[in-house]
Structures are given as structure tokens and as C-alpha cells.
């Protein structure tokens, strides 16, 4: 080779190195993932968006698996080039995934078609599709290779499956809205969390004013039995758990609603606390620590990872759109040096939070490389994966997945729904109370009605289009009013949406579909009990042959496909703290899922609506019914 050629090559290499160095040193580089095959057509709510929800690194670190919710797919990326190796179609609205103990298989839970996709990680092909429980949300394999555990959000349990055949061996009782599973490092225990609070164990004089209670369910993996329930007091909404590599430190990300005080105290940080529960041998008695700080909230912690050397904890925040970095040594020093509880102390996190790293919109799942140097974060609502350099504590790359060139109004509305940036100090957003666009199972004191007045149960958002007016008192004629001026004044207490943003948010809320009803048979068929219940629902005379006044028949108020005539009535459930007796007729959409019931959540179950709160037969004529007949009526209502 001539000298000039050598110089030329050297120059080219130097130039290339310079470009690479610039790329590395630049604050953030967007890397467009090169698709090796056509993108998967979306079957989800928002057409064309990948919506990465979770990320997982292969055991050898060479591949990044990205669970893409709206495109019903798992994308497999090369961790060096970020090129998409393959996009694998799975079931509808996948929510969780994990490897088998050998790494040969990847299991994916498909939350809307109640199935589990089994992917061969060598061929990247789906090799089996097993039916599982209602709304499977997470899966984890045991270390023996014998069993899989699947968290079912709707049936509030954890299915134990034969890992080879998918046959179900047992259902273990979990928390309400069972959703996220994690095995400890040696695989001896499975830890489960849940997104809705457990029903109160007993009534109190406060009736509907019980603080929410949640749990971490601990399963002995060898015995496939629940052996412990770690109580999480005043917690509603628990998401991912992570363990240190030595298994001595466990961390759960969670929401701490302050629903027993009026929302007037938003200015004082009294709406939500965003916290971690620490547990394990390093901790002893589990302890809750705040992630928020004065005037800067870390809204909706979701994903958690702990550095291999146990030096750092990384937490994604779906509302604040950041990743919080906690120094574990400082955290330990703080909790051992101070008497708890710390959760009300907004100055506490300054002692152990060392960085807040901005990422994409609605960050959810996180995955840390084995050397702990890179953290991948799935940004669900801008279809990217952030790559964080953990030495620099900043995003160095952003992997772009399938996404239309232009953000649609619907997508913009969804982004608005999930961000917390509009509320005072970024404390909370719509999705705080409407977890995954549903509800939270919590009762709130909304001060527009007066402090301590008009306690209201949170209502489901599914399929609420054309069920106006809104609010339990029917005070808001449409969604823009509900979500615009009212929300601005009473919730966010801050600058709120411009007209276009409000229009997009309303569009999104109106488009939230109904989850598949798990009690309804195919082809509008009914079980015998449901059919008997349907007849009771529609009856015009009571069992004594007396005509039931039209306004006291079930279908009068609960009319139409959604079960509401959109009018207000006094059904005899007014409490001493209620300002009025007239209540908006709630729709019946997926009513089986939305306990507690009545406007203030005082009926813990559907049965209590009529066994406890309908003494005067004002909420329909029901006191002539036998217990069998009431059970039938409830079986029918569950199909709505």
C-alpha cells in the first residue's frame, strides 16, 4: 500500500472515530432502528404506534427484547447497533414477558386475549400459545424449569402452570389487580404486586373512609404456595419489584394516595406520594421511603432496577417522564440514622436521590446491562427506548421504534392523559387515579363540594363515550368540561391545557374501549343463572304480582347498551356527608371489576348494594328477592 493510501485510510479512520466520539459525547442521539422486515400492523387502540412497555436483555446481553403493546409484538434488537433483528407478532395487548430459566424461551402475557405466547429465542418464532387466566399481566419462570407463574389482573390471582405444557396446576390468591411478578436472584421466591388496593377486611365506623391496603405476595417457588404477605399500608398501586444481586435488598415501586384528606391540600403535597418499599435482609422490617422532593415530584414510579454492585437503584416515573437514581449507600445511611416514618417528609429524598434523568414520554419498563453501565428505558408514548449511560447519569441514545411520522390527535390525547406535567409541581396526572386508563379502587374527598362532603368513588373510564353527564352529581355536561376547567381548578391547580390539547385529551378519553368482559359467553348467550338474572333485571312485577313502578325497574335507569339513561335519581343512598340525594346513573360497563360500589364506595360488593343499602327498595325493587334470585341478578350484571 502506498503511503498516500495509508494516510488516506488513517484519515478516514480518524474521521470516523471523531464522528463516533461526537456521537457518544453528544447529549442525546436519536438512532432510527433499521427494520429488517415490514413493521407489524397495529391491532391496538392507537394505529401504527409501537408503544414499548417493557424491555428485557438476553442473558448474554446481545439482544434487547422490547414488548410493544399497541403493535401486539415483541421486537428483538441488537444491543450494539439497535437494529431490529425481528418483530414477532404475539397476542393482543401484551403486558409482561420473561425468559425461561435457561433463556431458551421467552414467555409473553397477552392481556386482552388471555393467552401466553411462547417464543423460541433461537428461532425467534412463536412455538406455542396457551390459554391462561383473565388479563394476564406478568409471567415468571421458576429455576427448576418446571413451573411458570402468571399474574392475572382481573381474577386477582397467580396461576401456576406446567412450564412444558402450559397446563394449570393451581391458582394462588394474590392482591387485587394482580399484575407484576419478580423472582429473587436464587429463584426460591416469587414476589407479586397488584395495582388496585385489597378490599378492606372489615367495616369500620368510617365506612368508606378506610385507607387503602396492599401487599407483596411471597410465593415459595418449590412448593408453589403463598408463604407470606408483606403488608403495604396506605398504598394503592404497586408496580415492579427489583432485587439486588445478593438478594438481600428488595425494592417495590408504588403509589401512596392521600385520599383521606381533601384534595385542597395539593399545594401541600397531599394528593399522592410516590414511594418505594424497601424490604429484605438488609432492611429488616419493610420501610417506605419517598422519592418526591419539595416542589419537584417523581410521579408514578413504575420500573425498578438495582445495579449489580448494589450501588444504585434506578426507577422510571411514568408521569414525570424521568428516571430517578438513588445512591444505595446514602439511602441505607439515611434510614439507619433517622427514625421513620419518612413518607411525609419531602426533604428526605434529597439525602439519597442523586439524579433525575429526563427520558421519553410515559417511561415504563427498565433493563440494566449485566455490567450495570447502560440502562434501557421503554418510553411507551413516544415509541422510543432511552439508553442511559449510568456513569454519566444521562440519556446518550434514543432508539426509535415504529411510529407514524406525525403524532395523531388521539396519541397526543393519550400523552396528555399519562403525563403529570400539568398539575401543580407535577404531582400527578389523570393516570394516577385511572391506572392504565381504568380506575384506582379508591374513594376521594374532592373539595369543590366542601371539605369532608360528597366523598366519591372513582369511576371506570372504559367506554364512557356518550354517557354524559359526568361526575356523580351529574354536574359536568361533557368531557371537555369535566377534564378542562374543572380539572384545572380543582385538581391541577396550575396552568392547564390549551384548546387543542383539551380536545385531544377528550378524544382519547372518549376512545378508551371496554376491556373484554370475562363473564359474557360468546354469541350473546347466557348461563342459566345469568339468564334468570336477566329476567329479574327486566321484570315489571314483583314476586307478589304487584306492578313495580316504572322508575323503580332496573332497565329504567340502567337502560341502553351501556346501562345508563344519563339522568339523576335518588336511590336512597345519601349519607349525612352528602350535599344532595340526586345521583347520576352510572353506566354498567364491566361493573364486575369496579368494586367498591355506590357513589361513595360504601358497598364493598355488588351484593351489598341491595343487602345493606336498599332497605327502602328505592334502588330498584329487590327486597322480595330470595338469595338465589339476588345471586342470579348479580351473575347477569357481571355480563354487562
Amino acid at each position: 500500500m502506498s503511503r498516500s493510501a495509508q494516510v488516506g485510510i488513517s484519515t478516514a479512520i480518524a474521521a470516523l472515530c471523531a464522528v463516533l466520539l461526537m456521537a457518544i459525547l453528544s447529549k442525546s442521539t436519536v438512532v432510527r432502528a433499521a427494520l429488517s422486515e415490514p413493521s407489524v400492523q397495529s391491532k391496538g387502540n392507537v394505529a401504527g404506534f409501537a408503544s414499548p412497555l417493557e424491555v428485557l436483555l438476553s442473558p448474554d446481553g446481545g439482544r434487547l427484547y422490547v414488548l410493544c403493546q399497541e403493535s401486539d409484538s415483541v421486537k428483538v434488537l441488537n444491543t450494539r447497533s439497535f437494529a431490529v433483528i425481528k418483530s414477532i407478532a404475539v397476542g393482543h395487548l401484551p403486558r409482561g414477558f420473561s425468559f425461561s430459566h435457561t433463556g431458551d424461551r421467552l414467555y409473553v402475557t397477552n392481556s386482552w386475549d388471555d393467552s401466553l405466547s411462547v417464543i423460541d429465542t433461537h428461532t425467534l418464532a412463536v412455538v406455542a400459545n396457551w390459554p391462561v387466566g383473565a388479563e394476564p399481566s406478568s409471567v415468571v419462570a421458576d429455576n427448576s424449569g418446571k413451573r411458570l407463574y402468571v399474574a392475572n389482573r382481573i381474577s386477582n390471582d397467580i396461576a401456576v402452570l406446567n412450564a412444558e405444557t402450559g397446563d394449570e396446576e393451581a391458582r394462588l390468591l394474590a392482591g387485587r389487580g394482580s399484575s407484576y411478578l419478580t423472582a429473587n436472584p436464587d429463584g426460591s421466591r416469587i414476589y407479586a404486586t397488584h395495582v388496585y388496593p385489597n378490599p378492606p377486611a372489615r367495616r369500620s365506623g368510617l365506612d368508606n373512609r378506610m385507607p387503602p391496603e396492599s401487599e407483596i405476595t411471597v410465593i415459595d417457588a418449590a412448593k408453589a404456595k403463598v408463604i407470606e404477605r408483606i403488608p403495604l399500608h396506605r398504598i394503592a398501586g404497586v408496580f415492579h419489584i427489583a432485587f439486588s444481586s445478593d438478594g438481600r435488598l428488595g425494592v417495590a415501586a408504588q403509589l401512596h394516595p392521600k385520599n383521606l384528606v381533601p384534595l385542597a391540600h395539593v399545594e401541600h403535597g397531599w394528593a399522592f406520594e410516590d414511594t418505594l418499599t424497601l424490604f429484605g435482609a438488609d432492611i429488616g422490617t419493610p420501610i417506605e421511603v419517598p422519592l418526591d422532593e419539595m416542589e419537584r415530584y417523581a410521579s408514578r414510579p413504575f420500573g425498578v432496577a438495582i445495579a449489580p454492585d448494589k450501588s444504585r437503584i434506578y426507577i422510571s416515573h411514568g408521569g414525570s417522564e424521568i428516571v430517578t437514581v438513588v445512591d444505595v449507600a446514602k439511602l441505607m445511611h439515611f434510614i439507619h440514622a433517622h427514625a421513620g416514618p419518612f413518607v411525609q417528609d419531602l426533604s428526605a429524598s434529597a439525602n439519597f436521590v442523586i439524579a433525575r434523568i429526563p427520558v421519553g414520554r410515559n417511561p415504563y419498563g427498565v433493563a440494566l446491562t449485566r455490567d450495570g453501565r447502560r440502562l434501557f428505558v421503554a418510553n411507551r408514548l413516544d415509541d422510543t427506548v432511552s439508553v442511559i449511560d449510568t456513569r454519566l447519569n444521562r440519556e446518550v441514545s434514543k432508539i426509535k421504534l415504529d411510529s407514524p411520522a406525525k403524532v395523531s390527535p388521539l396519541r397526543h390525547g393519550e400523552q396528555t392523559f399519562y403525563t403529570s406535567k400539568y398539575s401543580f409541581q407535577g404531582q400527578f396526572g389523570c393516570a394516577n387515579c385511572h391506572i392504565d386508563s381504568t380506575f384506582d379502587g379508591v374513594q376521594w374527598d374532592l373539595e369543590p363540594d366542601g371539605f369532608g362532603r360528597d366523598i366519591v368513588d372513582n369511576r371506570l373510564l372504559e367506554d364512557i363515550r356518550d354517557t354524559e353527564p359526568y361526575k356523580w352529581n351529574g354536574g359536568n355536561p361533557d368531557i371537555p368540561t369535566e377534564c378542562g376547567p374543572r380539572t384545572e381548578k380543582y385538581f391541577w391547580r396550575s396552568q392547564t391545557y390549551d384548546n387543542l390539547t383539551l380536545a385531544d385529551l377528550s378524544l382519547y378519553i372518549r376512545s378508551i374501549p371496554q376491556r373484554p368482559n370475562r363473564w359474557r359467553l360468546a354469541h350473546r348467550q347466557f348461563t342459566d343463572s345469568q339468564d334468570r338474572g336477566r329476567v329479574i333485571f327486566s321484570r315489571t312485577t314483583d314476586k307478589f304480582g304487584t306492578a313495580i313502578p316504572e322508575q323503580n325497574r332496573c332497565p329504567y335507569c340502567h337502560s341502553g347498551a351501556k346501562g345508563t339513561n344519563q339522568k339523576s335519581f335518588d336511590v336512597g343512598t345519601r349519607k349525612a356527608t352528602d350535599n344532595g340525594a340526586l345521583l347520576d346513573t352510572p353506566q354498567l360497563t364491566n361493573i364486575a371489576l369496579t368494586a367498591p360500589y355506590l357513589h361513595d364506595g360504601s358497598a364493598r360488593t355488588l351484593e351489598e348494594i341491595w343487602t345493606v343499602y336498599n332497605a327502602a327498595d328505592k334502588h330498584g325493587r329487590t327486597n322480595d328477592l330470595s338469595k338465589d334470585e339476588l345471586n342470579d341478578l348479580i351473575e347477569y350484571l357481571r355480563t354487562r
Partner: protein
Amino acid sequence: MKRLVISALLMAVATCAFGTPTAMPRYHFENFTTANGLPHNHVFTLLVDKERVWAGTENGLAVYENHAWKTYGTADGLAHRAVLSLALDKRTGVVWAGTMGGLSRVSAGRIDSFTQLNSGLSNDVVYGVSVEGENVWVATAAGGCRFNTRTGQWTLYNERNTPMAEIWTYGVSATAGKVYYAVWGSGVLEYDQKTGRWDKYDDPDGENEIVLFKDQGLIHEIVTSVSYVDGILWAATYFGDSRYDGRTWHNFLTKDSGLPSNFTNFIKGVDANRAWFCTDRGLAYFDGVNWAVYRNSPLDGKPEMTERGPDGKVTYVDVTSAPAHNYVLGIDFQGNDIWVATAKGLSHGIHQP
């Protein structure tokens, strides 16, 4: 030699038919009362789950583990402090407790309670409970119920959809094939899981306190407990007990068996031939041929064990301990050991070699 063989065979046959009782199990009883940790001496029921022993008492649900008692009460979420029945879901480890105020589900310290107000349960007085697959079968003072733990659906069984003349169900024994209800005043109800049909077994003598023909059918209408094992139904009444193999009945009365009393609170079959009888006058065991009774002597209150062979001959066995009280309400097994619920304490019968 030929004569010797014949003699030996004859002796063997005679021993089988009329011989001396085979060694009946012997126990050393260690008794628990409020003095050593029980929340109440009145123990309605008990359940053994490997090393853990659950006791349903008049004042809470107690669990004995690692040589210590822990009690759950209404403050912990228990439906009522009086616990009448217990059942274990072996697949999940969940314990179901029937109480005087509803049905409670106990799982790793968490208790959820189902009542006639907050659920589809037909009545809050839950006398019996049994787990079969994903179903929990319940016997209440207002009929039977089946709770599907997967779907949350309650199905009620009463006079409207079964041949149940009375709805006071006292006990239930559920398997994948058949489910039996003990109905207080209405015999035994049988549910065939395959066909979904109900059948009913009554005392052929009706409500008369007589037995015209021996082994004609169920011994009495007031049935207190049922146990279905190995295809055999064991049924207890306040007027004797019955065994039914699907074709023929065999009844047990004090006059023609080793039962210490006809008043039987609870019955538990070990297999097709062996069963335990919890009576108001002691605990009895039947091994298919011979009987043993464990109790405190009605004469002097001293511990007593008797054995009765097929020839009716009763022999006394030297013992130094007996169940806590003769009014026996329940029994369960822990390996070769037994645990016994009585009206005045709980007993651990430690098997003696």
C-alpha cells in the same frame, strides 16, 4: 404333616373370622387448653396441614406451629369468633373456615370473609366446608352453596333445586365425582358431578326412632356429618352411624358395634374400611373388624382405652392418657398421630409403637 397343615389353615381362618383383635393403635395424648395457649377450650373443629394444626374454637381460629399457638379473630378479618368447620385447599394451602358469622378464607395471614350480605353465601352459619378442585362447597343453616374460586360465582342448593326437605345442612364432603351433604332432619344428599343430578338417602323408617330391618338404609334422618372416601360414604347421625358402598348399607349402633354412643358429632373415613367416630362419650376407631375407644372412664374419669373384637369381647388396655374430654367434635391425622377436638380442649394423640 398333612394334619398339621390343615390345622394351621383352620387356625388362620378362625383368626381372621373370630380371632383376637389385631393391635389397635395406641396413643399418648397431650392436651391443650387455655392454660397452654388455646384461645378457648371449646374446640368445634380442627385441621392438620402438615406441621401446622388449625383449631376452630369458640373464640377464634388458632394455629399451632413451632410449638406455639397464634390466634386469629374478627379484628384480623375472621367472619366470626366461633369457628365451626375447616377445610384445606391442598393445591394452594388456603384454609377455609366456616364460622357462625360467615365463611373466611385464610391465606398466608390474610383473611377475607364472605357473608350473606357481602357475597352470594346463603347463610352466615356455616357448619361445614369442603374443597374440591376450584370449588368450595359449604353447608349452612340455609342450604348448601358452591363457590367457584375462579369465577366468583355462588350456586345455592336448597329446597328449590334439590330434594332437600330441610335446609339445615350440617356437613359436606366433596370430591371430583360425588358431593355429599349431611342434612339435619333430611338424610343425606348426593350430587353427581358428572350428571349434575341430586339423589337423596333417607332413613327407611322415616322419623321413627326404630330400626325395623337391620342395614336397610341410612340409620337416621338427623345426619350430622358425612365423609366420602375411596367410593365409600360414612355418615354420622345422633342415632347411630352408617356406611354405604353404593349398593348396600351397613349401620353401626352401640348394641351391635364398638361405638361408645349412638350420638355422633363427626365422622371421618380413613379409607373404605376404616373410620373414626367422634361421639358424646368418647372417640372410637373402627378398622373394618375391630373397635377401639379412647376416652376418660365414665365411672372414675381415669384415662381408658378399650378394644372390641368381632366376637364382641371387650378388653381394657392400660393407658395413662386420654383425649381432653369425652364430648368429641372432630379429628384429623398427622402421619400416625391424631389430633382430636373436644368440648373442653384439644388433644394430640402421639402414636405409640
